[in-house]
């Protein structure tokens, strides 16, 4: 069923990437004496994500899943948040942060069940693919409405602070969401209240077809933080070490001082917005060339090869391992039937006293 039909991710042999400037010392400072293991794990997750995205886009084309929104190009951000966050932290995701849930320990098989909207999907197949709920890893349920999770994250952060609980909330959204109501309300409330929230703005330079410079007249999106009296910083979101360093500072601010900050991770959307989108209609071809030079996976792989981690950076070996995990999850998920029709009526409201309705008396 799987295997041979797996579309391969584009090969990047011979492509030049912008080298990462971190030194081994930087890596040690960021991740401790265990830095090599952490970097290898990060690389493995990036390869996994790349394979997963490619595979799922293929399944969508075959009509086996209904929709898919790839996160290709922004893996460094998702992996870094997954690795640097703690179990007590919370994730308020947008469309492209499922990898954060997986790195935090949500089973791959469960996410694939969701993509197939089968009876094992924790949310009973109610949502479009890529809208999973993973309470086991404090990953909120997302809607397709842009930005609404930003205020949720701020309220959640307020609740954590009020209860004197230690967690930090990571709120994810894209460049387009900076124009949304909830961005404004959320960052404003966060500034006034002082809450442990890290606003992770993944600027992939496109809101479907709208380039970021048509989204806002500012030079950067990070500078919007000043309008709310909170810290803001623009980061190269395809540089795993730069991302990790910025996150460390923001997490520290949130954990120690209960203060919010805005991190703008500049990345390149290397795939269409979703399987329903055709970027050749609007994207200049140069964009993909620039994107290739900033491929976070290649950049990290090159760095590892240059810094004595060549074995862990063997893409084919790692990929083979990831592919088999993905294949097993797909085989298993596809064999599960769709959700019970009766489930359509569950969870509309709490299972408490029923309405005094005639139809219920009769039926």
């Amino acid at each position, binding site marked *: 069923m799987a295997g041979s039909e797996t579309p391969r991710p584009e090969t990047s042999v011979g492509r030049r990437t*912008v*080298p*990462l*400037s*971190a030194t081994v010392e930087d890596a040690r400072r960021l991740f401790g004496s265990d830095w090599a293991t952490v970097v290898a794990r990060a690389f493995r997750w990036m390869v996994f994500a790349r394979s997963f995205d490619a595979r799922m886009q293929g399944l969508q084309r075959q009509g086996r899943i209904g929709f898919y929104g790839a996160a290709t190009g922004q893996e460094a951000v998702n992996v870094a948040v997954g690795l640097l966050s703690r179990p007590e932290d919370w994730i308020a995701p947008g469309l492209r942060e499922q990898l954060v849930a997986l790195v935090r320990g949500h089973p791959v098989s469960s996410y694939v069940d969701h993509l197939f909207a089968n009876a094992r999907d924790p949310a009973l197949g109610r949502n479009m693919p890529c809208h999973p709920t993973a309470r086991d890893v404090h990953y909120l349920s997302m809607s397709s409405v842009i930005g609404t999770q930003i205020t949720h994250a701020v309220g959640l952060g307020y609740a954590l602070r009020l209860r004197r609980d230690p967690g930090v909330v990571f709120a994810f959204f894209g460049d387009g969401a900076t*124009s949304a*109501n909830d*961005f*404004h*309300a959320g960052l*404003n409330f966060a*500034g*006034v*209240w*002082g*809450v442990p929230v890290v606003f992770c703005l993944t600027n992939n*330079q496109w809101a479907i077809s709208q*380039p*970021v*410079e*048509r*989204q*806002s*007249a*500012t*030079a*950067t999106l990070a*500078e*919007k933080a*000043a*309008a*709310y*009296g*909170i*810290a*803001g*910083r*623009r*980061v*190269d979101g395809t*540089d795993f*070490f*730069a991302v990790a360093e*910025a996150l460390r*500072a923001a997490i520290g*601010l949130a954990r120690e*001082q*209960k*203060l919010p*900050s805005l991190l703008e991770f*500049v990345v390149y959307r290397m795939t269409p917005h979703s399987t329903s989108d055709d970027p050749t209609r609007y994207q200049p071809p140069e964009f993909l060339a*620039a994107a290739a*030079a*900033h491929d976070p996976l290649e950049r990290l792989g090159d760095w590892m090869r240059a810094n004595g981690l060549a074995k862990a950076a063997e893409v084919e070996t790692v990929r083979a391992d990831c592919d088999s995990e993905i294949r097993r999850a797909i085989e298993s998920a596809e064999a599960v039937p769709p959700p019970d029709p009766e489930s359509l009526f569950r969870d509309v409201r709490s299972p408490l006293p029923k309405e005094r309705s005639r139809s219920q008396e009769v039926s």
Partner: protein
Amino acid sequence: MVAGSHPKDIWATATRADGMTSARVRPATVERGARAPAGVPDARRVEAYRWMVLARLVDERCLTLQRQGRIGFYVPLEGQEAAQIGCALALEAADWIFPAYRELGLALVRGVPLETLFDQFIGNSGDVLKGRQMPNHYGYRDRNFVVASSPVGTQITQAVGAGLAARRRGDAIATIAFFGDGTTSSNDFHAGLNFAGVFRAPTIFFCQNNQWAISLPRAQQTHSATLAEKARAYGFEGVVVDGMAIDEVYRAVRQARERAVAGDGPTLIEAQVYRFGPHSTSDDPKRYRPAGELEKWKQHDPVAGFRDELIREGRLTVQDDEKLWEAARAEVASAWKTAESKPPVDPLSFLDDVFAQPTRELEDDRRRLAALLAQREGKP
């Protein structure tokens, strides 16, 4: 509730932006007006003062009328006269005003007769709005003064849209949106300023920061140091002006207008003022205002301040001033008397203007209601 100080400089360490700034991202272009215009011109200074006095007297009168139950509600502007009159004089008659509900000064300068305003406050047969809105929520198409609503901020996006429309039509005008400090938190502030930045709309955002959004002090509204700096988040310039000083306001608005009409985009002006009175006649500021704050600000009373300035400039004598107040008082009294003597609004008129043409259902409603009213009056 307010958090501790936010260290804005924690990001001092340079970010590694290896080739990061995409060539497609251009820096914000903010251009300053070529030369700063002067304050309110000589020929209009006494006129400006007269408008301020008139606004002050309308306030005084309406607060009394509301207490007497002769009008239902009132929103005073006391303390904001210089900001409003200075702004109004800096605009051209063709500029479109998108007011909130406190912009009496703008309406006066635009030439809306006192009687017309009073008709609206009463909601009588002379009211252009046919008694449909609360007092202060007026609008006069012939004055390019758009009708106000109560939800805060909705006029901001509308002003941007009108500005873009004017540009498309080739009209060299500015549009101007009025709002307060609280409105900077609203959805439409964000959307409106962002659109204005992206499309370089010929729009002026005139924020009268009167320090209180009903009971919420400015410091709890947002954590930014000023409201004007929020403009930077949208890629254009914001300026803070002393809203108690009419010349400063005039200059800032004049400059913003020049920029708008020249195609150089929008400006956010934060006029720092103080609301001397309550938010509205339904509000009691004694519940929330710290003792002494009002008194402190009253030392900067814009009306008294400008009078002293005019006397110093030799444009006004104490006697002139007394006469001016007296004449203005008479004008207010006479306009009120005329307005109050008018019959009430046609009772069936509230069924009009829902659509361009009434629906069949509304026509039925009109017939039924007419019959009911006739029955009440004992007619067959």
